[in-house]
């Protein structure tokens, strides 16, 4: 049994893929870089960060590569002037939204947001900073949630629900007032559903969810478990 094979072109390069692959999968496989922050192999894609938007010939709208399935004869552009401009803007919006101060962050040097900003050549943010007041939840005995550094990618929500099966995390509020919460917005340490597995911490792209006891630049994430678990699950093991 094999899935049908599709051929398509990405940035002028002819590539092949199986029907259930997404544009992002195929691009990554072929060494073509598409930025993404909410996406993580092993959990359901949601298309929320809008950084992986690509141009597809014949579509008037930009499509998120993480969720768009390949089609025969598809012609994808991942790096036009327009896309570069939009990605830059979206990154700047993310950086302006909360209080991202790398120099005092435990994840400094190991942060996906920071790394991507550097890769996209962002040296400054044009939009006014929003400077929201956010709290830090250090009630858990081993982990800390710092909402100032959260980008609402919802990786923690998904990994907790889909992989750990606890569904401790969710999102409350609307618009910029959105916040990730544990249980019904109780302190993390008092959560009755949290198993303390730490998967959320490991998949968090920034310094929003971290282990206690780390100082500046000491926190690095280990998320090798996720593709492995996803693969095993695929084999029903």
């Amino acid at each position, binding site marked *: 049994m094999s899935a049908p094979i599709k051929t398509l072109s990405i940035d002028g390069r002819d590539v092949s893929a199986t029907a259930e692959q997404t544009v992002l999968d195929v691009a990554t496989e072929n060494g073509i870089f598409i930025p993404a922050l909410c996406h993580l192999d092993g959990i359901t894609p*949601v298309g*929320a960060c809008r950084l992986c938007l690509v141009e597809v010939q014949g579509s008037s709208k930009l499509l998120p590569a993480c969720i768009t399935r390949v089609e025969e004869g598809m012609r994808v552009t991942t790096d036009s002037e327009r896309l570069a401009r*939009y990605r830059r803007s979206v990154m700047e919006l993310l950086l302006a*939204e909360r209080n991202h101060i790398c120099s005092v962050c435990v994840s400094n040097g190991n942060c996906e947001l920071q790394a991507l900003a550097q890769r996209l050549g962002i040296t400054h943010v044009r*939009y006014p900073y929003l400077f929201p007041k956010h709290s830090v939840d250090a009630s858990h005995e081993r982990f800390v949630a710092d909402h100032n550094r959260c980008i609402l990618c919802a990786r923690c929500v998904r990994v907790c629900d889909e992989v750990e099966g606890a569904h401790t995390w969710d999102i409350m509020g*609307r618009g910029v*007032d959105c916040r990730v919460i544990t249980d019904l917005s109780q302190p993390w340490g008092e959560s009755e559903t949290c198993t303390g597995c730490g998967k959320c911490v490991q998949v968090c792209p920034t310094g929003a969810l971290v282990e206690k006891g780390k100082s500046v630049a000491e926190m690095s994430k280990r998320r090798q478990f996720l593709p492995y678990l996803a693969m095993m699950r695929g084999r029903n093991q």
Partner: protein
Amino acid sequence: MGPENLDQIAAAEKLRAQGMRHHICVCTAAGCQSAGSGEVKNALAREVADLGLKHTCEVKGVGCMGLCSAGPLVSVECGEDRVLYQKVKPDDAEDIVGALDGGTEVSRLVCDTRAPFFSRQMKIVLENSGRIDPERIEDYIAVGGYGALMRAITEMTPAEVVQEVIDSGLRGRGGAGYPTGLKWSTVAKANGGQQKYVICNGDEGDPGAFMDRAVLESDPHRVLEGMAIAGYAVGANHGYVYVRAEYPLAVKNLRTAIRQAERLGVLGSDIAGTRFSFRVEVRLGAGAFVCGEETALIASVEGKRGAPRPRPPYPAQEGLWGRPTLINNVETFANIAPIIRRGGDWFSGIGTGKSKGTKVFALAGSAVNTGLIEVPMGITLREIIFEIAGGIPDGRRFKAVQTGGPSGGCIPEQYLDLPVDYESLVKVGSIMGSGGMIVIDESSCMVDVAKYFMEFCMSESCGKCVPCRVGTTELHGLLSRISSGTAGARELAMLEELCEVVRNTSLCGLGQSAPNPVLSTLRYFRDEYTAHAAEGRCPAGVCKTEKEVHA
């Protein structure tokens, strides 16, 4: 229950109505009710009882009659004669009932129904609204209700029903104008044998729009009939009506209607002895604007957080519980029964080349007559605003008309002769939208208008995608600074640049269309923006600019 039973009920109902010499119809829809029509109705009923006219005069509650600004409205019918009274108070009951037999009318209350507000309208969706009692299924059946459903399921194949809708040229009335027939045929073709669903989108959220509320309050059976016909056409046996909880009367009337329809057997199992079954459930929205977006609405019906997801897959392929789902707006469903009854060709004869039928608008803002109107597609904005709506009050000048709510735009004076259809409105930077129409006069500031709509989008953004969540907040911040006169050309340029980003990168329609009010006002009223930005002055004198505060 079969077609002949419907005829019997209709005949009995007509006989009952003929037994009454006078019919006093009191609008009990939300607009008039808030003006006190409930007490008016009670007073009229008391007066009728006191004068011993109970057997010759009927007092009934009906749906919206349209001219909400003149409510409470009371219509007195005697045979062919009809008198409409406006701004009726409970104290007027004595005079109204007293004038019944003399054949006279209470002249101080009379509302001229020959006025353009009434004569220039064309009613299809609202044909029963203001005429029948929405809480009695017999009233609906007496005007031919459920006849189209009976005809569809006993005389037509599902494919013929779909074809009729395709022929009608009906397009989605929720705003985007997607061809309804095409949507139906897509769902009808989705893998056979699968469970499918029909959803009616009644999560009307545009500021100033109340078309769906009026339809659900005034003629709920019409919507149920349209849904049932849709269920038959696409092969679904289960429907959901998603209504916002802020519409308690619509919810109440809808629930009553479902109960009556099930009791009578026009909804439920094996309708009219056929193998077609269709049940309808009501789901209440908790007031999130984004839940009007179809994928967010579906998530909400499933009990999840109302947040949209990227399309494709479209709900027609993977909708509610992952099953093929037909989702249409209230007004779209309300058009279905007349199309089946009178034929798709009849419907496509009304309107313009690509926009068929009529459109219901909720007129609001700076107009003499505000309320609910239904006009044929292709009518000009000038006719709507200066004839039907009676122009601008207090001798002020017209400035713009806003259509499509927070997703639409402002149309200036030079386009007043534009025909109202989907394409023309898009061409000038607005959209048809679901039917909100706000008239703006010279006393309003367009930067302030844009800021108002951006504030709405900002607070209604679900927060899932970055450009909408943060972009609308930044746009609102920029607009606030421009309106307060503390921004310059740099901020104006940033505003335009950010509008483009939010429009092209947001996940769903809310974010993609959120910049529209800004872009359209920038297009036609740029001088107002520059006056704020360059001179720190609000030409309309609405915004408190920094300069004025200091002065």
